Structure formats: C-alpha cells, structure tokens
C-alpha cells in the first residue's frame, strides 16, 4: 500500500505549477501524477517519495490536501500485462475507481496506481496471482 496526496486546484493558468513548485522547493520527488478536471476546478493526485513532507509543505502554502491509500502494482513492460492485472481484479470482483501510471523509471518496471474501496481484497487477489505490489519504501 502506498499513500497518495490529492490537492484541490482551481482550473486556471498556473494552478498546477503552483503545486509542483512548492514540491520542488521542498525537495520532494514526484513519482506519479494524474489530474481530474471540471470546468472550474480540478484535483491533482500525486505519488511522491516523501508524502509527509509534501503534505506539510503544501498545507503551509495554503493548499487543501488529502492523503489516501492507493495500491501500486509493478508490471512487466509487455503487451497484455495491464489487461492481465485488470482481469485478476475483475475476477476478484474488485471495483477500480481510477487508475494512473508512474512516470518512466530508468531501468525499472512500470507501475500502475489504482484506487478502490476494497484494498484488502484487491491486494489479496493480486498477491495470489503473483503480482508485485509496491511499498512506500520502494518509491
């Protein structure tokens, strides 16, 4: 299980950059990022190497954040592997709220990040199928 930080941003020029510049200043490394938008506001979701530091520096700068648990799964960079992981979850009747992927990591396998209401069951079925689940210290 890894932790994800969500940040409320207004949908206007520079608002995402405001978040990344706070993280840059705090020396936090972004591992994965995805955004959701509506015409007026959006949510930035981030996996970083130091979630505690990231949250405190963002809060200090007046951002509204929320830390939640997500699952990170390491995949081999081969055709059909994402499909296979999703099949495992589907067979286990796990509903995925959203999914996004890590930025390319030199020499390392790709990682998919997803959110579900049923983490325990998700991790159980993935482990049973021999899929590697990321832990925070590996970020």
């Amino acid at each position, binding site marked *: 299980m890894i932790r994800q930080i969500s940040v409320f941003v*207004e949908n206007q020029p520079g608002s995402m950059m405001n978040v990344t510049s706070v993280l840059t200043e705090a020396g936090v490394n972004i591992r994965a990022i995805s955004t959701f938008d*509506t015409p007026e506001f959006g*949510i930035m*979701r981030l996996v970083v190497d130091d979630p505690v530091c990231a949250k405190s520096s963002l*809060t200090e700068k*007046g*951002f*509204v954040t*929320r830390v939640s648990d997500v699952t990170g799964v390491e995949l081999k960079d081969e055709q059909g592997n994402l499909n296979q992981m999703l099949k495992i979850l589907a067979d286990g009747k796990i509903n995925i709220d959203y999914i996004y992927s890590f930025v390319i990591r030199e020499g390392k396998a790709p990682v998919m990040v997803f959110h579900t209401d049923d983490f325990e069951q998700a991790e159980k079925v993935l482990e049973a199928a021999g899929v590697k689940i990321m832990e925070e210290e590996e970020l």
Partner: protein
Amino acid sequence: MAGVALENWVERIRDPKIECMSRDEMADLQNRRLTEVVKKVYENVDFYRKKMQQRGVEPGDIKSIEDIEKLPFTTKEDLKNNYPFGLLAIPMKDVVRVQGTSGTTGKLTIAPYSQKDVEVWGECVARGLAMAGLTDEDIIHVCYGYGLFTGGLGLDYGAKALGATAIPMSAGNTKRQMMVMEDLGATAFACTPSYALYLAESIQEAGLVDHMKLKAGIHGAEPWTEEMRKKIESILHINCFDIYGLCEITGPGVAQDCIHKAGLHVHADYFYPEVLNPSTHEKCEDGETGELVFTTLAKEAMPLIRYRTKDLTSIDHSPCECGRTLPRISKFTGRTDDMKVIRGVNVFPTQVETALLSMGGVIAPHYMMIVDREDNMDVLTVMVEVDERVFSDEIRKLDALRSRIAATLRQALGVSVRVKLVEPKSIQRSEGKAVRVVDNRNL
C-alpha cells in the same frame, strides 16, 4: 482569556442617569435639545433655512420631539452638494478636526467636529466600552484604521474617555497584530467583524488562543450576522459586541449592543433615531423594519437634521434587561443600497453568510457574490472556499457539495445561484470593510 458568561456578568453603566432615564425625562431632554439645534441650523446654515422655508416650517414650530416629523430630510446627496463645508454651523476656526469616508462618486463624505463634538464622541464610545464590561484597567487593542476613517480614532477617544489603555495598532499586518496583542496583554480588541474573524482564525492557526488575555471584541462598520459573532466568540472565548455609527453622525459609538445582545442601544440623548418606511416615510411601529434616520441633538460643527442613513433596521423602545432604557435598534439586515435585485429578488450579502453558516460549519463564511448579466439574464455566482474539512479526493463528492451549497443558497435567497469552489484563502480578507459583492451588470 475566556469571555464572561451571562450568569457571572457584572453590568457596568457609565452614565446611569442618562442611560437608564425614564422615557418622559428623556423626551424632555430631547425636546430641549431639538429646539436648540433647529434654531441653530436655521440661523447659521443656508441649506437648512431654505429647506425649512420651502416646507413652511419655522424654528418656532418645533416645540417637542414629536414635531420632528415637520422637518425636512437630509441625504448623502445633500452632503455631496454642499461639499466640503457648506453645512457648517460654526466658524471654521472652531472646527478642531475633520473625519471622512468614501462617498459614492469619488469625493469624500466629510464630518467636521468642534472640540465638544470630539468629547461627546469619546463619551459615547466609552459608554459602549463600559457596556462591553471594560474599565480603566483594560488594554484595548485598536486595529481599526487610523486616519480619516472614524474607526481607529473613535475607539481611541472612547478608550481615553474611559481611562483605559489604547494600543493604536491601526489595520494590517496580522502577524504583528498578534505579536503585540500577546506581548502587551490586550484584554479587548476593536476592528471590523470580517477582520476580527480573520484575526481569530490566524490566532487559532498559530496556536496562540491560550496566550491571549482577550475577553471582549468590539466590532462594527459593516453588517455581520449572529453566526459570525458566535464563531469569533467561540474561537477566542470572548464576548463580542456590535458597535454602530456613521461618520456623518459622529462615527462609531452612535449605538452598541450590551451583553444581552437584544439590539443596539442608541445614545438617544445625542442622536435621535427614527425608523421610517423607506417609500412612504411613515413612522414604523416598534419591531417593524424601515430606514434608520438620525437627528444629531447636540452636535455643534455639522448638525444633521433627519439624516437618512439607508441602513435598514427596526427599533424597540422597551427597557432592556441590562437596565438601560435607551432605545434599541436591531442588528442590521443590510443597507438599502447594498441590496442587490437579482431577477427581481432582493438579495443581501448577509443572507448568503447566514445560509453558509447554517450548513453547520461545513463551509467557512468567506464568500464573494458576483452578479453578472448574461443574455439579459441576471446570474448570481457565489464563490466559496474549499477547506480541509470538506475537500474530498473525489470529483463527485465535490460536485455533490457544490450542489448542496447551491440548494441551500437557493432556498435562503429565493433565486438560483451558481456556486464556484475556490482555493482556500483565495477570497480576499479585508482589513477594512469587506467587499462581499461585485456587480458587473452596469445597472
């Protein structure tokens, strides 16, 4: 640090002879003073003489306070037309100071004072400070602006009359405000309610609530709601009092509420209040809402006769539990001129605030109303700040929140509202009068 609960409250009345006077005695005093002031303006101010002559009224026709209805009104427009010193009733050399406020057309609305006017002003504010439980032992941190604006100096004169210690901080620089408040051990502070809330939140965020010795807050110069008062009181553990005044009449200290929070006691020995139906100008019954109209009964420099304040309120002449017999005006429901008519519906910013606060602390009461006209249709957008308590990682939950706020506002205002969620602290906190409404319609 804690505010005093009602059961342990010791009521302090600065001038019981006046403040607890019987209605007959007060009427006698008012009769005398009104007769004098009318005679004075008739003799010394062309504007009043002409206006009274137009109405066929002479000073001799004004024998008692009831006769006030015979006198013509004075409006802000009249002040503008006689800017700057056209309404002066004393020689300029006897004017010891001038205060002012922004007028509607860029020019100032000014208020000149004689030495005695300044003393009366301080006395009235001091009555209010006593009403708030303060004595000559208190340290009053004044973070109203000092300058032409009457807030800073008004509270300063009040503290001086009371013999309390005034800390003339003026507005701005919240960190420094907190430091001085803590270091000098302020027991009360005075500023606009919106800044009071901002300051309270800042004190709370800095973990300094327990370091403060505050017991009372004196707030006015803009309308605020009971909910806002409770919020400031509960964050700082103090009692907050609503002070009212307007520069033209004297500045803060025209009226203030007591611990019973049952309306603002008007110092009716100096400022005679009438509440009138804004269109028919007929006198409202006690409890009925209308426009507040003041006559200054003892002002020397620029007495105002039946000055229309555009503030909407109601009046209650019954004696208060605190022992005062001074008439009470209700907390303001708004001004006749900050009311917005949106698709034919009257909307007051205070309604938005009350509605947001009624959502049980879900939403911080920092908001901004923006009125636009799109395709000949009025559109009201209310910007609301999202904070930690309501932020969800999921768009659908935020959208649900937005719909809930929109529904609450629609119900409260009777007009549909677009709600825009914005980042925390992105709505400007005011250190003076909060701007709550932007009207882009060019009406």
